[in-house]
């Protein structure tokens, strides 16, 4: 029940002024610029773009500055901003096979065309704090350069596909449903699930993926391939009647190859999970691929073992951190009237219970 009450304007204004001051922190320390955040906290920027579902590094960096580094708050700011933008069109599906790869590794094949390219990875670092970074003004040496080979970097799943060992992807040019335009409807279908997972909360999707590895809907994944790099975005320009590139985005793509012994409807073969996320976001992309695969149980004729990661409704309705924090955090806002009625009720029940006890004692 809502009852309009007034009051607190001055307290709110003063709280916001104090927030601004706290955001700035100690003024004897230099202020962060948006460009510094964009360049030096790039992985935070990537997460905000992926879950904010808007690729714009400057805006994501600004949101991180404004939110004092609270990434979910930053994602909220981006989601709110994107609703103000007119939709200028829909791109052609990006061709990740033509990606300019910064990183490309396969856990299934050691030798493959295009090679294993580590890229700028945290893997194989010792995870020891580097106190040299605490000293300012130390510029790192330029990274070594090798000789790029002019060769295509085909998807690993293509090799398995050629031998008929992996479930083929259904060819389709169907227009996918869009979560930002229509409310979520179940059953969702894979395209809608992929959109929801790609913008879903990294922690939630990671937890769901981890649960499948620990046995809640196990699906035996191998990382067939993980690649990170730039892809061109093409869109048909209505004024011209043909497609042009309108920019390029960095994405992380993960394809899992999953063991599958066959079911009533499908022969024994490998199956696929797929992850594609804006930015260099490999933990998220791998998680997405595992959860995508778990959610495909019905189309593959697998048993539903009742695992949370197999439950489309559970996963899709709880993966969005903006919806979740909106509902969660609203309970801290005034509920005076609601609570007053609960208080009345409890008092009344206690009164009645007390009277009944006294009556029994008297009889």
């Amino acid at each position, binding site marked *: 029940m809502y009852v309009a009450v007034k009051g607190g304007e001055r307290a709110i204004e003063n709280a916001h002024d104090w927030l601004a001051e706290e955001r700035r922190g100690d003024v004897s320390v230099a202020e962060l610029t948006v460009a510094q955040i964009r360049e030096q906290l790039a992985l935070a920027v990537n997460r905000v773009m992926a879950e904010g579902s808007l690729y714009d590094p400057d805006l994501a960096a600004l949101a991180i500055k404004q939110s004092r580094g609270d990434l979910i708050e930053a994602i909220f700011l981006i989601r709110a901003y994107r609703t103000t933008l007119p939709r200028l069109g829909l791109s052609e599906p990006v061709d990740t096979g033509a990606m300019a790869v910064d990183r490309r590794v396969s856990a299934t094949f050691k030798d493959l065309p295009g090679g294993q390219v580590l890229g700028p990875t945290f893997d194989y670092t010792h995870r020891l704090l580097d106190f040299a970074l605490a000293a300012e003004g130390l510029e790192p040496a330029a990274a070594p350069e090798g000789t790029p080979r002019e060769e295509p970097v085909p998807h690993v799943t293509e090799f398995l596909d050629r031998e008929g060992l992996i479930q083929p992807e259904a060819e389709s040019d169907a227009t996918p449903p869009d979560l930002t335009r229509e409310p979520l409807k179940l059953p969702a279908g894979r395209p809608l699930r992929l959109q929801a997972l790609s913008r879903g909360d990294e922690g939630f999707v990671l937890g769901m993926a981890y649960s499948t590895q620990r046995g809640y809907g196990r699906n035996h994944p191998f990382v067939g391939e993980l690649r990170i790099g730039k892809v061109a975005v093409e869109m048909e320009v209505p004024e011209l009647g043909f497609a*042009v590139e309108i920019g390029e985005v960095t994405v992380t793509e993960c394809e899992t190859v999953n063991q599958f012994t066959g079911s009533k409807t499908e022969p024994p073969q490998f199956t696929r999970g797929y992850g594609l996320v804006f930015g260099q976001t490999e933990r998220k992309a791998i998680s997405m691929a595992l959860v995508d695969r778990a959610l495909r149980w019905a189309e593959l004729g697998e048993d539903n073992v009742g695992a949370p990661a197999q439950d489309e409704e559970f996963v899709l309705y709880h993966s969005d951190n903006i919806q979740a924090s909106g509902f969660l955090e609203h309970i801290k806002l005034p509920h005076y009237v609601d609570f007053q009625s609960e208080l009345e009720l409890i008092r009344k029940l206690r009164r009645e219970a007390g009277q009944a006890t006294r009556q029994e004692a008297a009889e």
Partner: protein
Amino acid sequence: MTELSPDQTDRKAWMSLLAKAPAAELFRLWEAHGAAPAFRWLRAPEVGAVMVRGRAGAVGAPFNLGEMSVTRCSLRLEDGAVGHAYVQGRDKEKARIAALVDALMQTGGAAALRAAVLDPLEAGLADRARARAAKAAATRVEFFTMVRGENA
């Protein structure tokens, strides 16, 4: 999609280049070129979003990945040439210059403009792509077989 004519292929190439070019570099080259043609807006610069799509399993059914910011505009030069721009980001000035370049590329000044603006932009993009590819190449794993004890 139908086959593009040679003119359309050319136009697609320069529009794609302008969309991806860093704004600062485009401004510098445009200023240096010194063209300032009179024009009329057909559509003033407008910031919006384009929904970027992927495909399930890279080759399957399309899905919506997320949006990217894009600025578009259209203009007409006095001689009638019409220029369009769809450029990544929220920079209206970049969109204006991209549309002017698109229009001028359809006029007699095309060759000079290509040499002054498009060629250097393209070289810059290629240089940066090459530098990244070279760094990636340096992190390519070269496997070798360990010499086993009994063979030593």
